[in-house]
């Protein structure tokens, strides 16, 4: 009896596919985006004049900074199966607050920074309370706060633009490290990426996010505080977005009501392109970073080649659509191909 059982169980297990650690990394979900990034960089270096060079690194990275920053909390939020469309508006509100507090209220810069982070924190907490505590759908809530926070930015700064920030600071924001072409702020961005990467992949909290994204119930059963976790993610999103807003102001030496406008869609697109599943439960920070850089590289090389914004717009849209439908369609193809050999009880008649 027990013999037979053992045999049967072995037979029912998945095809044995022993992977070494290295192979796991090289074949992982994140890796695909990294490969695509490398491929695009190589192609652009060959075909686009002037692409290969230090200047590219500099210009490309500095443009990527705000998206990279906002993509970090966004990745975690999407992994838990939610979304935050208000990030760019939060950044805009912080930028507006920065302009007003510095220029009109004459606060010292240190306090201005603190105040901006507080603005982000409050915005994030507002989203968090509505979504986790009250349980409203995040999509609708953040469409609302997208309008609300941008509207408040208008209320705060009106139609004026503040530009008289200390030159030393604005120069610092666009400076590069020696001759490497790498923007100095990338050090800070790397720290943020590292923090989010470590939190997602190496802490108990990060572990719980995947569980949360896959199934709220599965998460509850292992003692995860579902609502509390979501709340803090939105707070993090608000704070990081406000940092992006502050950077934006310094980089362009200009604080306006429409700073960072419209960036939320680029952030979501980059995160999805980076392999994070829109259904939640799947994704990694390396992939997200690669996703952001991939979008920026494609955009920048097209710009460098002198192609109009039009092409950029179409390429961005196509990349986004393909990156979400490709895995889904391939899954459907496989599903219909080996429906009979399906390992698990299928979910009722939901399949089309």
């Amino acid at each position, binding site marked *: 009896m027990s013999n037979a059982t053992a045999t049967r169980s072995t037979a029912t297990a998945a095809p044995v596919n022993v992977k070494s650690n290295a192979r796991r990394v090289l074949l992982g*979900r994140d890796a695909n985006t990294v490969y695509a990034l490398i491929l695009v960089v190589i192609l652009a270096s060959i075909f686009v004049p002037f692409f290969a060079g230090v200047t590219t690194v500099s210009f490309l990275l500095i443009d990527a900074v705000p998206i990279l920053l906002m993509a970090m909390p966004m990745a975690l939020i999407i992994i838990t199966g939610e979304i935050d469309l208000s990030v760019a508006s939060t950044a805009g509100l912080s930028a507006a607050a920065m302009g007003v507090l510095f220029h009109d209220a004459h606060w010292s810069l240190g306090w201005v920074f603190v105040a901006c982070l507080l603005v982000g924190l409050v915005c994030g907490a507002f989203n968090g309370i509505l979504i986790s505590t009250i349980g409203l*759908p995040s999509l609708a809530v953040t469409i609302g706060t997208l309008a609300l926070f941008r509207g408040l930015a208008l209320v705060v700064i009106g139609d004026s633009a503040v530009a008289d920030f200390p030159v030393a600071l604005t*120069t610092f924001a666009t400076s590069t490290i020696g001759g490497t072409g790498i923007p100095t702020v990338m050090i800070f961005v790397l720290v943020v990426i590292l923090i989010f990467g470590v939190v997602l992949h190496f802490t108990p909290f990060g572990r719980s996010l995947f569980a949360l994204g896959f199934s709220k119930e599965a998460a509850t059963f292992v003692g995860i505080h579902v609502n509390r976790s979501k709340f803090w993610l939105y707070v993090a999103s608000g704070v990081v977005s406000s940092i992006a807003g502050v950077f934006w102001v310094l980089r362009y030496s200009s604080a306006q009501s429409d700073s960072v*406008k419209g960036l939320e869609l680029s952030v979501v697109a980059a995160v999805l392109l980076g392999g994070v599943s*829109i259904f939640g439960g799947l994704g990694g920070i390396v992939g997200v970073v690669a996703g952001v850089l991939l979008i920026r590289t494609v955009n920048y090389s097209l710009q460098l080649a*002198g192609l109009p914004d039009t092409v950029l717009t179409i390429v961005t849209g196509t990349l986004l659509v393909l990156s979400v439908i490709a895995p*889904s369609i391939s899954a459907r193809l496989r599903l219909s191909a080996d429906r009979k050999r399906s390992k698990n009880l299928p979910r009722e008649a939901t399949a*089309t």
Partner: protein
Amino acid sequence: MKLFRQAEGRASTTRRILAVAAVATAAAVALSGCAGGTATSPGNAKSFSIAFVPKQLNNPYTDVELSGGKKAAAALSGVSYSVVGPNTASASSQVSYINTLTQKHTNVIAIAANDPNAVCSALNQAKTGGAKIITFDSDTDKSCRSLFINQVNAKDVALVELKQMAEQINNEGDIAILSATANATNQNAWIEFMKQELKSNPAYAKMNLVTTVYGNDDDTTSFQVAQGLLQSYPNLKGIISPTTVGIAATARYLSTSSYKGKVILTGLGLPNEMRQYVKDGTVKEFALWDPAKIGQAAVYAAKELVAGTITGKTGDTFKAGSLGTLKVGADSTVIVGGPTEFNAANIDKFNF
């Protein structure tokens, strides 16, 4: 709550990389075809490259401007002419394009700034790379450019517009201004001069500027802003709209409303856009210069700047083809010509 329910099994991402790679390759192939002509040899005095960065592409006024530049570039031999820019007026995307131009060692960058400060650091970087910077239409901070090609003296514009308005309302009553964006340098300069004139000129003592509103150079917004204006200020006698989009939208609203003929509209408009409203009596008079001359002057100035025959300091002169000799005035500004006034009698003579 989960944001999305997944209908199917989870996807492996093997197809994702293929999809992304396919798009990237397609994009690269597309650029390899387009990129050829943009490379130029720097430093040759006879041949040089000039790139125009307008506030936004796809704007009729911009088009007329650029057509002058293109014609002049063709008339001079060895000028490589190009236009890059964003589809919507935003300073941050202008910066990206300036960066690519810097990287391509474009000799002259001619820009109409969406924000006088936000583009500055990028322009300075271009300057460091050896590029000459000309601003046209909408200036940046003086330190960031060699020359500013201005349509007309800002004060002249302001005076003409006030004069046209005063004549039609008999120097008496409430008026309002419908401008482009709150940060548009040129519009703000004109508005400032109008305010000064209203205060200082005794003839205008009974004219009262009640408000300035912004239509963001967007047809729909301008239309609705005009409408709101008339509702909030029942005694409004006239609207001055110193922007081509704003005046056309306002004219369209007036022509279809009961205010037609009762509320006076003046400002800056394109004859082709305004012809209909002049003929149906909505608008009696408006003003503009020939925008094509700006592009033309920019190209000739660029040639001299690259050759080193002028540096952009006050007092420099240069020949500008059919425009004759132009003189660099105060603040390194070149005035191309005076405003033309359009009315029912002369409008059919113009086609731009």
